[in-house]
Every structure is written in structure tokens, then in C-alpha cells.
């Protein structure tokens, strides 16, 4: 089969110029569309992503980094001289470190979960497994930060430090006289501090600059192909966070997966009794992402929605307030409440459902941010 392309000169003689006019016009329109439909410098979403990553996410992880270092220092002091005061100081340091990390949970993507990092699970895989921890302590394997770093996620991180500092069975000053137990605690706290530093630096422009990945979506980013994908991911994360709270932090302990049989052992922060505080910190993170921070003139999702003619402020505030009120009505630690105040816990879950639906249905539809998981989407 041989095909000859006609010469341009030959065609010019047989094709009137006007026949090409429609196609030249079309080509011009297409070129104009190509030039204009890009997601450019002045895009509000890009500005928001830039500011959120550098003024919200990086500072949160910097705070967590610094506070984790304080945990390591206070644990060193505890092991150097076990006492009630030293134990209280270490516990306080742990509680303080927990706060920015839980507020940052709405940003649990990127270095937190991407396969090349997966730092999040090394910091916060819960619930702790006391049997495994005690078995390791009772064993003869070396106990040092390097060894701990190689162990599975349930041998390290905030929940393990929590168990060793708060569990009545594991954390009395007398028990911490046990050199191997305290060395395990010291190593875990040191490993935690190094992971906190790692996630901070992974986001920081001075380190791995994942913040740049977020704000460079659709241009230089290898993590997101389009600006819409990146922006959609961040906004959708608010809904996912609330969903995770309802499913994992409230639902599982309530017995949603076990036919109504309460499971207090799968409560988050069960040794410190901080579970409800953890959730409230999660909500604080969502609140700042949505409303921004007026003190720093930091805009939130709300400002973008308003710019698009969609004002969700009042509804969001109401749903968030109702959730907080319901959570604060739980008067005992969650592990206990799932047995003694189950109705209140369920009420909190119901209020959070309102918030979840507001985000995942109303807000996402209004902003056209349904996640496209691949461009096998469309019609």
C-alpha cells in the first residue's frame, strides 16, 4: 500500500483558500482556548494552597517538632531520676505535643501517607498494643533508637509513649526504675522526635518542600496533575477527617463493627483519656482550614466559597458548634463513656454526621470539587 502526499503547490491549485478558512478559524480558537484555560499565577486556589502550606501546615508541624523534642528531653529527665514530678512533666509534654499533631490531622496526606514517606503511621498508629510492648521489654533484643526505628509501627510513636507514661500498669515511677523499660521509653521518645523532625522537614521549603508540591500543582508538582486535584484534595480532607473521627474514633469503640458490643480497648489515647480532646483538636484544625485565621489574615476555604458566591459560614459554624457541644457533653473519658454514656457518644457522632454531610455533599457540590480519582472520569 503506497500513499503519496500531494504537494502543497498541487493542492493550492485545486483547493480554494476559503475551504481552509473554517479550519484556520477553528485552529485560532483552539489556540486561544489552550492559552487561556490554564491554571495561572493569579489563581485564588494556588494562592490559598501556597499560604496554607507555608503558613498553616509547616508551622503546625514545626510546633509538633519542637514539642516532640520537649517530650524526648522530659523523658530523659524522667529516666535520669524517676519521680512523680518528672512523670507529670513528661506527661504534660506528651499532651502538649499531641495538640498540634491532632490539629494537623486534616492534612494527613503527602509525607503523612504517601508510600515514599509514610511518616504518619510511624508517629501515630493506634490503639497501642500493650502485650507486644511488654513482650519486647521483657525480651533481650537491643533497645535503642536505631533498633526502634526498624520496628513495626505498633512498637513506636505517640501511642507507645502514651502507654509507657500513662498506663497505670506500666508507668509508675517504681516501674520506670527498670532500666530496660525506661530505655525503651527514652528510645521511643527519641525516635518520635526524629520522626516529628522528618515530617516537619518533609513539608518545609528548607527541607523536602512538599509545600511546594502542593502549591505547584499542575505545574511543577509530581504529586498532583492539576491545581483542581490539589485544591480538591485539601478541601475533601476536611470531610474525610470528620468521617474518620466518626468511624474509627467513635464508631469502633461504640461497637459499630461488633454488633453493638462496646470496644473501649480500641479508643484513641485511651491511657491518657485524651480521646475527646484529640477530636476537638481535629475539629480545630478543620475550623482553621475552613475559616482561616483572621489574626494572621490567613484566608480559608470559606473565602474561596464566598468568592464563588457560596456562603457556608453560618451553616458551618452551627454544625461545628453543635459537634463541639455534643463532644464536650461526654463527661468521662471516651473508653469509659462508650459503656456509661453511650447515648451521648452517639449524639456526638450524629452531630458530626451533620458536619460531614455539609462538607462532603453541600460544600463539595457547590464548589464542584468531587474528587476525580483518575481522568477515567467524565462522559
Amino acid at each position, binding site marked *: *500500500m*503506497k*500513499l*503519496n*502526499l*500531494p504537494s502543497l503547490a498541487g*493542492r493550492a491549485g*485545486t*483547493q480554494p483558500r476559503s*475551504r481552509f*478558512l*473554517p*479550519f484556520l*478559524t*477553528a485552529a485560532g*480558537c*483552539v489556540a486561544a*482556548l*489552550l*492559552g*487561556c*484555560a*490554564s*491554571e*495561572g499565577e*493569579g*489563581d*485564588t486556589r*494556588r494562592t490559598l494552597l501556597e499560604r496554607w502550606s507555608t503558613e498553616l501546615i509547616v508551622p503546625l508541624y514545626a510546633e509538633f517538632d519542637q514539642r516532640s523534642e520537649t517530650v524526648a528531653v522530659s523523658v530523659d529527665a524522667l529516666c535520669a531520676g524517676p519521680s512523680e514530678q518528672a512523670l507529670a512533666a513528661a506527661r504534660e509534654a506528651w499532651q502538649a505535643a499531641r495538640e498540634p499533631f491532632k490539629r494537623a490531622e486534616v492534612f494527613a496526606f503527602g509525607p503523612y501517607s504517601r508510600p515514599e514517606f509514610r511518616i504518619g503511621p510511624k508517629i501515630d498508629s493506634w490503639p497501642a498494643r500493650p502485650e507486644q510492648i511488654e513482650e519486647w521489654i521483657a525480651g533481650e533484643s537491643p533497645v535503642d533508637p536505631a533498633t526502634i526505628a526498624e520496628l513495626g509501627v505498633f512498637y513506636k510513636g505517640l501511642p507507645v509513649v502514651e502507654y509507657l507514661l500513662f498506663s497505670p500498669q506500666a508507668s509508675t515511677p517504681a516501674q520506670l526504675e527498670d532500666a530496660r523499660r525506661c530505655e525503651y521509653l527514652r528510645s521511643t521518645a527519641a525516635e518520635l522526635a526524629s520522626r516529628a523532625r522528618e515530617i516537619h522537614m518533609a513539608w518545609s521549603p528548607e527541607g523536602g518542600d512538599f509545600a511546594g508540591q502542593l502549591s505547584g500543582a499542575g505545574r511543577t508538582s509530581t504529586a498532583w496533575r492539576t491545581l*483542581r486535584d490539589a485544591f480538591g484534595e485539601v478541601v475533601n480532607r476536611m470531610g474525610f477527617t470528620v*468521617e474518620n473521627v*466518626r*468511624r474509627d474514633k467513635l*464508631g469502633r469503640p461504640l461497637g*459499630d*463493627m*461488633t*454488633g*453493638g458490643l462496646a470496644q473501649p480497648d480500641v479508643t484513641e489515647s485511651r491511657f491518657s483519656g485524651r480521646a475527646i480532646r484529640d477530636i476537638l483538636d481535629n475539629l480545630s484544625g478543620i475550623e482553621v482550614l475552613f475559616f482561616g485565621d483572621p489574626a494572621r489574615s490567613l484566608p480559608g476555604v470559606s473565602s474561596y466559597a464566598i468568592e*464563588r458566591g457560596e456562603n457556608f459560614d453560618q451553616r458551618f459554624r452551627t454544625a461545628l458548634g453543635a459537634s463541639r457541644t455534643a463532644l464536650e457533653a461526654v463527661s468521662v473519658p471516651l473508653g469509659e463513656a462508650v459503656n456509661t454514656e453511650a447515648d451521648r457518644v452517639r449524639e456526638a457522632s450524629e452531630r458530626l454526621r451533620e458536619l*460531614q*454531610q455539609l462538607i*462532603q*455533599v*453541600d460544600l*463539595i*457540590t*457547590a*464548589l*464542584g470539587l*468531587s*474528587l*476525580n*480519582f*483518575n*481522568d*477515567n*472520569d*467524565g*462522559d
Partner: protein
Amino acid sequence: MTATERTGPRLAEGRSGTSHAPNLSLARCLEYCNAERDGAGLGAFRALFGALLCFSVARFWAYGWIEELYLRPPFHFTYFGFGWVRPWPPLGMYAHFGVMALAAACLCIGLASRLSSFVFFLAFTYAELIEKASYLNHYYFVSLVTLLLATMPSGAELSFDAWLRRRRGQAPLRARAWCYALIRAQLTLLYLFAGFAKLNRDWLLAAEPLGTWLALHADAPLIGPLLGSRGAAYFASFAGAAFDLSIPFWLSWRRSRPWAYAIALVFHVGVWLLFPIGVFSWVMMASTTIFFDPSWPRRWLRTRATPPPLEAVSPSGRLGRAPLGLAGAYLVLQLVVPLRFVLYPGDVNWHEQGFRFAWRVMLVEKAGQVEFTVLTGADERRYVVYPRELLTPLQYKMMSTQPDMIQQFARHLQQTFQAQGHERVRVYAEAWASLNGRPRQRLIDPGVDLANEPWSLWPKRWILPLQNSS
């Protein structure tokens, strides 16, 4: 001498480029359908279509969608009556797509055109039937067109088949009028149904969902503010409906064809740039070339071989009464299937009964949230199932707004619990959704045990009606 002149008047269409006046007599109908046409246009259509299919399969593979859509999910949403369609083991699934790619490549170059088209149709359709969550209108269109190509001599020109026949001294194949007519009819139905589906309150009076989607580009340079305006949304809505409702006719009329195709190019490229619709636009741009004069490729590619004398042409490809009846039945089916939504009360964009296979393109922006409560045994042990952790993101996204998929998953949960030894398993859905910017509302009656509702195509009484319907 132009290509049309060279191939002779019998091979070209009339001056208007449109069909001959219809004649109701069967003989005249057969005579018209079997009239010979230059196969170059059909060959170019086949080659372009095959190239796009080849690209699509390669892209599907390269992006990891075989794994994501077929291998990873432990559960698949199959189509009613096709529950037996299951993915192969991993190696088999990759081989399946390998066969598909090979068939697409053969179709593109015109090697064993009919067979490769039929193989592609079978392999592609099987893959599509595995997972309802991945349904796309243009996938359905691909299935239909490859089926049609398998029935016609699309390799008559611009193909290895033609070259081989010449080398072997065999009589060349010739395209006939019915080949063009059938594909044009298919495309016309697609556009018209897509256009009619846009004649509703949301599209015309609220400019939704285009208003929401275009506003996403409000920050684009130069045209951003324009795209973000309501005026642009209304203009795009009306223009889109007018385009769909009229483009087949403008493309059929020879005098308007160049401008119509230019507009189609701008329209489809614009849609491709603004919305995440994959290769759909390119499929349509390639497909609409079938409306051109059948000799159009000869203006761009001049073959050395002169068209064969007519007496040497193979008689194959002629329609008899029975094939003509089949073609007619096919078109009637294509007319009826998209209209089946009228049998279901309520807004089809909301309940989605009769939504698929109906060319209802780009009509909805929906988001949903769904959870299931499972009650088992006489003591009503209560389980809450959060389906996001059991489904892929795409499956969850699709299921959360599509009632039949919600019921399908409820039935799956029932089977799963029964397999674990539970008795009297009842499944209820807490499902909320929003359509085209409306406030969210319940999609499913939360008091209905979905697992024990009939699994059928009859209207589903447990879908709650849309408030403020379009």
C-alpha cells in the same frame, strides 16, 4: 481531477451530500442501502477510531487503571443480568487488555478489519461489564461502533486488507451506503439524545451544572472572569444544547459542513480543556468525520491505485432483507433504550433509572454520602458499615449517588454477613445526595430494608423523590 471525479459519480454522494429521498418500498430501500460508496471515508474513520482505541488502551494500562478498576476491588458492581462477568486473574486481565490493544492496532491499520473490530468489541465490552462504576457514555459508544464496524467492510480502503487483496489479485471490497448511514444514524442519535436531555430546568433556567464547572476556571488568565460569570454559564448551556441538537444536520449538509466541523472542533477541544472527560472529545472529533463526503481522504492522501472497475468489485457487503431488518431493529433499539427513562416516575437525573446507555452527557454534578446499618438476628444486633473503607474511591463516589448501586452493595453486605453465620440480615441505607447545587436531601428511604427488596429493573419505590425537581 478531484478524487470524487476519479472515482466516478456512482461512488460519490449527490451534490447536496445528504441521503437520497426516502422511498418506502423495500426494493428501493435495499437499492439505496447497497449503492456503492467510496470506502476511503469509512477507512479513515476506522483508522482514526482504531488509533484512538489503541491510545486509550495504552493509556489505561500505563495509568494503572487495570489494577485500580479491575484487580484491586474485592467487590464489583456488575450490570443487571451480567453478574457472571468477573475479572480474570491478574495475568489474564493484562492479557485481556493486550488482546484489546492488538485488536485496536489491527483495526487502525486495517488488518483483518472485521475480525479485529469484533475481537475488540468482545474484549472491551466484557471489561466494561465487569464494573458499573467505570461506566462512561463514550465507552458505550465505543462498544456500539466496534460492533457496527464488525458488520461492514471498513477495510475496503486505506487498509492492509485492501493492499493484501490487490496483491493476491482478489476483487476489492467496496463500502456501501448502508455502512455510512448506520454510523451516521448512530452518531445522530447520540447527539440528539444528548441535546434533548439538556432541555430541562437545571440546564436552561439555572445553567447548571455548567455554571459550577465553568466557575472552576474563573481564575484562568484573560477569559477567567468571563468563564466565572453567570452569563457565560447560560451562554454555554444554550450553545451546548443547540450544538447537540443541530450538529448532525449541519455536518450532513455539504455547504455548512466545513464550518460545522470547525465549530465541532472548537466545541470538543473546549470541552476537553475545561472538563475532565478523558478521550471522549477526541473520539467525537474522529467520529464526526463519517459525515464528510466519502471521498474526503483522497483530498488529503492521494492513492496511486485507481479505483477498481465495478465489475471487478466483490459482491460482499450487500444487504439482503434479513440484514436490513437487523439493521432496522438495531436502530429501533437505539431509539428505544435511551427513552426508557419515561417508564420511571420522577427526575431521571436524580433516581438514575434509565440514565445509563441513554447519552445523558454532562448533565449532573452530584455528591453523596452513604452509610449502611446492618441488623442481624432476632435480637437485632446492629452494625454500621462505612463503605468507603470497603470500596475504591471511584466505586464509593459513584455508588454514593446512584440508588441501584446502593442496593447492590446492600445485597452484597447481606451475603457477606450471611456467610459469616448471621441470620435474618437486614440492610438499611442512610444516603444523602445533592444534585446540581441543590441543598442535600435524602436519596433513599432509611426505613426500607434494601437487601430484601426485589433486585429488578422495575421502578424502585424506596428512592425518595427529588424536591425542587427539574
